């Protein structure tokens, strides 16, 4: 029986507790939470901001079986004695452990921008980051400027515009998400944001914040009753570093999510696995799942989850799947789609017939399909256009009779009648029909229908052979 102590009470911790319970962890678990509020589902913060979700709904059901100490701020980790020192109000406490899990998360980077914080480093009134539910309440006034062209900046700005706030998004790159989406895709994102009412000011830096406005380096200014800083986060590593645990950008962990101290693990935004930190929400949850298995005696190696960014905004569907570097790898074939009038864009990096990386904008169906193929490592259909534009057959089922004909495989122009003809000529199985007609070899979406047809004909033929009573 071992005692597990967890520092930090974010979504990764919540997931870890659930995993431990499911795997039948028989020891005790204590969580030190610096905050008094329970865990939040942070990715939905911008939904709260839109006014579409009550803040209370961000709180998942508390996990039974763990002792959660709220308002307990860890001050030091003593790895030699295996004890964590903390402060709970005015009381100094000590918490021994057999296994320590660091899930301290990340904290927002505050840019050195005059007018944003007071002498003690506290954010000035009217300036906020967006990390907690209470931050949503700090965003006041009719005009709000969001600083930062990353995912959070885009999500925040579009959420604010949707609720009717006069919103400006300022970013130093030519467009928001320029590095991930590239010139064409990022320009389309800007166009979509503008349509949604966000005033996008790209290629500009903030030089000073004054009450009610943000001054920019080109001499212009943006109205800002509130200023939201979405200028990135950095892993929270101070406790680990002070304890002599190996830290690079984040707390360095191996495939068992173990730090340089064999009794200390790290997960979530504070951890650095395979040279990568802050890989996103899905990645943090996957780490929690792995660690739950490791701590209950299973031999699991944490597999690097594919980096997937899906923008949570109503403005446009955006997804970045896999590492951008894949586009520059040798032997990679790139497929692109650009529909300027329809504001749709896609770029796929293909390694053979597998997806190595993808950038998609304005193509919700393709995002679903491509994500699925990528996650499962499945081959992409040869009909790239069908894959990206989501060409599917829309035939009503069970209306097949021999008098009517219909197109089954749109990609290869194979009709039901042609398939029936092939069946008559001896193609009595699905693979034989495929060979005879090339049906299903495009986007592949008609395979179920070909199977149904084939089974139906086989049944009918079987019935005919039965002696009539």
């Amino acid at each position: 029986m071992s005692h597990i102590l967890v520092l930090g009470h974010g979504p990764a911790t919540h997931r870890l507790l659930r995993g431990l319970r499911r795997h039948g962890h028989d020891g005790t678990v204590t969580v030190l939470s610096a905050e008094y509020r329970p865990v939040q589902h942070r990715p939905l913060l911008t939904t709260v901001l839109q006014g579409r979700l009550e803040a209370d709904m961000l709180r998942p059901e508390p996990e039974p079986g763990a002792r959660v100490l709220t308002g307990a701020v860890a001050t030091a980790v003593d790895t030699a004695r295996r004890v964590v020192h903390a402060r709970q109000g005015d009381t100094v406490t000590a918490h021994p452990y057999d296994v320590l899990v660091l899930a301290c998360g990340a904290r927002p980077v505050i840019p050195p921008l005059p007018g944003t914080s007071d002498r003690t480093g506290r954010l000035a009134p009217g300036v906020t980051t967006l990390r907690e539910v209470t931050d949503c309440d700090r965003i006041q006034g009719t005009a709000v400027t969001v600083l930062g062209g990353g995912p959070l900046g885009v999500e925040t700005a579009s959420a604010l515009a949707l609720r009717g706030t006069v919103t400006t998004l300022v970013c130093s790159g030519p467009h928001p998400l320029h590095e991930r989406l590239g010139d064409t895709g990022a320009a389309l994102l800007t166009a979509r944001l503008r349509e949604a009412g966000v005033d996008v000011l790209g290629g500009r830096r903030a030089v000073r914040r004054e009450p009610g406005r943000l001054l920019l380096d080109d001499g212009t200014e943006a109205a800002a009753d509130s200023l939201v800083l979405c200028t990135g986060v950095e892993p929270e590593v101070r406790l680990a570093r002070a304890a002599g645990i190996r830290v690079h950008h984040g707390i360095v962990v191996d495939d068992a999510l173990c730090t340089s101290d064999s009794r200390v693990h790290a997960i979530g935004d504070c951890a650095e696995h395979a040279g990568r930190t802050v890989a996103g929400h899905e990645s943090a949850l996957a780490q929690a799942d792995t660690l739950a298995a490791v701590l209950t005696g299973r031999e699991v190696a944490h597999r690097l989850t594919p980096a997937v960014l899906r923008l949570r905004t109503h403005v446009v569907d955006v997804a970045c799947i896999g590492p951008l570097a894949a586009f520059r790898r040798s032997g990679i074939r790139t497929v692109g789609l650009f529909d300027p009038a329809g504001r749709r864009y896609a770029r796929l990096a293909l390694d053979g017939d597998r997806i190595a990386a993808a950038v998609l904008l304005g193509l919700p169906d393709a995002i679903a399909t491509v994500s699925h193929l990528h996650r499962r490592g499945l081959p992409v259909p040869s009909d790239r256009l069908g894959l990206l534009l989501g060409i599917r057959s829309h035939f009503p089922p069970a209306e097949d009779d021999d008098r009517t004909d219909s197109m089954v495989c749109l990609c290869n122009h194979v009709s039901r009648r042609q398939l029936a003809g092939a069946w008559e000529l001896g193609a009595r199985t699905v693979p034989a029909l495929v060979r005879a007609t090339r049906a299903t070899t495009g986007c592949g979406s008609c395979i179920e229908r070909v199977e149904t047809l084939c089974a139906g004909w086989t049944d009918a033929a079987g019935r005919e052979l039965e002696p009539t009573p």
Partner: protein
Amino acid sequence: MTATLVVIGHGMVGHRLVDTLRELDRDRRWRVVVLGEEREPAYDRVRLSAYLGGRSRAELSLVAFEFLADPRIEVRSGTPAVHVDRRARTVRTADGNVLPYDALVLATGSRPFVPPVPGRELDNCFVQRTLEDTDALRAAVRPGRPAVVVGGGLLGLEAAQGLQLLGMRPHLVEAAPHLMPTQLDAEAAHVLQHGANRLGLHLHCGTTVTAVNAGSHGAVRSVTLGDGTVLDTDLVVFAAGVRPRDDLPVAPALRLGDRGGYLTDALCRTSDDRVWAVGECAAVLGRCHGLVAPGYRMAQSVARQLTGRPSEPLDAMDTSTELKLLGVHVATFGSTSDEDGSAVEMTFRESVSRYAKVFLRRDTGALLGGILAGETGSRTDLAARVGRPPAADLERVLFPDPSF
């Protein structure tokens, strides 16, 4: 009763017109006088780079013996026209003759555009439009020495490749961010640039020549680029495009296109119903065409009109190109958008070895046209698919076999 046709210009298109007319004019209605400015009768100007590489004049000639021997045709080479009087319906030539005409065809071609940079008149600055230009250039070639070609379009690339084959070390300067900006997009040009680098050509894209500098003997010694770089060079070839030759004194004057050229309708007719314009000097519906294929269509059309045959309007001119340059195959076909000016673009790229872009109709998905670079499927195969939605395995059509 025969009528007289005067054709001003004995280039590729003027010659094609007369040659077609010979064939179509079975009633022997026309007598033709062709005025050529150059001493050489019509030759294949497209292959001047081959001439630079050592091909003979005879190999480039387009004029067959039967043509010169045809009693209906009178070719006056080295005899430029200097004036047209539309009221009197006469053409005056440089040697003082006045030729009456019943029909007149302007086929004056174009002249090289030389950007107005200081030093462009120095010795060893060349253009490459005629056999004589090319003779002069060839005489200045010094193997092992650097040369500068201004212009990264078709002409510039051919000139650079020609100089390279003669042993020079050419630099090529293109103002646009990439090669062949009129025909290719950046990624197709990237495939071409890769080929250029492999052949040892030095590319300077996105900059211009701001000055041509003289050495001690008054000839070119170097050029200065927009970013201040100085390139030592023995010679400079200006291949920065052409401008239509529309400056022949015509009284009263003919209407010109907004960007120059004799303005014509879709049948190459100028505002004067006895005067046509064909080839690079013609602004058909306001637009000049610098390729020979559209010029030949114009020649065909006018020859048909002169012999009383119906002729299709030349409103949709095919600007397809296909060529192999610097060891790289590049081609374009069809158009880049539908009538609304919109299209869906699909691109396929395999490292720097091949690239294809196709344009599809937004409403039906039908193929409109495309750009090909590197070892792609053949342009003819793809051009035949224009107007229909592409096959599901479009990528295999564009990139037929795996490349290694």
